[in-house]
């Protein structure tokens, strides 16, 4: 029992340490464009996508192994995505594919 408690405590501490190192960055969407066309983040970091346009966007990636789809995002709203796998990820708006962000996730 003590061992389980110790393991849980260690897990919490480790999780807290990892969380302390995980960063959060914001990418805005305005004028049917991402605020950055390329950026580098660390594995475990989170990107917040803010829709400053007056149209709906839909942030997604179809890169094998790193697929995600944040769905319909209304003007003025925020959505976020954590990246747990290193590599280069091409992020687009599924409605306006000229919106492109090349994301490099490093260890």
């Amino acid at each position, binding site marked *: 029992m003590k061992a389980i408690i110790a393991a849980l405590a260690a897990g919490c501490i480790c999780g807290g340490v990892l969380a302390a190192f995980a960063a959060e960055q914001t990418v805005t969407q305005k004028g049917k464009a991402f605020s950055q066309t390329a950026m580098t983040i660390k594995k475990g970091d989170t990107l917040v996508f803010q829709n400053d346009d007056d149209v709906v966007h*839909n942030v997604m990636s179809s890169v094998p192994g790193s697929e995600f*789809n944040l*769905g319909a995002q209304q003007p003025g709203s925020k959505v976020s995505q954590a990246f747990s796998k290193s590599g280069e990820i091409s992020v687009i708006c*599924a*409605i*306006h*594919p*000229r919106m492109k962000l090349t994301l490099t996730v490093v260890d």
Partner: protein
Amino acid sequence: MFDAQNCRRLTHRAAASHGLCLAAVAGAAVAIATVVTNGFAAPADRPLVVAVASVPDPTIMSLKEKYRRPAAIPFPKDNPYTATKVDLGKKLFFDTRLSAANVLSCASCHNPAYSWGDGQPRGIGHGMKPLGRRSPSIVNAAYGEIFMWDGRAASLEEQALGPIKTDVEMNLPIDQLIERLKGIPEYGPLFQAAFPREGIAPGAIAKAIATYERTVVSGRAPFDAWINGDEKAISDSAKNGFALFNTKARCTACHSGWNFTDDSFHDIGLRDEDIGRGKFLPDVPKMQHAFKTPGLREVARRGPYMHDGSVPTLKAVVDLYDQGGVDRPSRSEDIKPLKLTDQEKMDLVSFLNTLTSDMGPTTIPILPR
């Protein structure tokens, strides 16, 4: 009015309609309307010759700049241009042995004789059975951001193998395609020259076809000559149509830039059960019945029109947009009744016709045996 160098004429009809657009459009389009309406307030149905001061108009010049052709064809970093790839890709593109029945090639649906479409309302696939949508032209595919009517292919390379292996299209599994090409002796050296490390492989086939497709670019049309300063290259009706295209008719909400597309997805209100992009984005209401905006280069020879080939002529296309299509939640906010006059519709068609060039004949390659 669009001839800043020489005195040209503009009808009162167009001038009046442009004036109506002042509150509805932004940027350069507003600038056009402002210029056009200077001093014109005559009855809307009577043509008038308008003398224009021979002063270059910066607003018209800046608007024209938005439509200027790019200087070069873009090729991706991971599949750069080489002449050997184009040579191989062209042979593969025209080779009917890329289909199970040996009767369909890429060129069957993307035929240069039909401005790289097939001239049919719907494509024809394996067993001569009709497909669900019209075959899109591949003209200017090099400049595309996403491919297929519903955007299900992220690149030309990804798209290239799709029709070959799809059972209702060319119906040839890729492993069988590889074996078939390996059995054609003259293909070996072509693959070796273009892809010395890959040889006859799926990726090499896709890259070669994609590279060839990127070389299929629309020719210089009368519109381009006008953009470059030849005021006699297009008619006054077409110039009026260009103004309408940018203002009252709201066409540039989607058909923007030199290739006349925003590469985005819109429901234009066609009465059709096909949900298009909505299949991949089911939670996005505006993507139901939405299809990718096609470019308009060579458009006069690309009919019938729309993803379902349901609209036979450019005149009918303009009529459709004038009516505004089916009113439903997914319909684009940019689609609404336009109240165009008959003359304005004719002017729009005149303008659209200036986007078609003389692309000239395409040579059919001698295929490997």
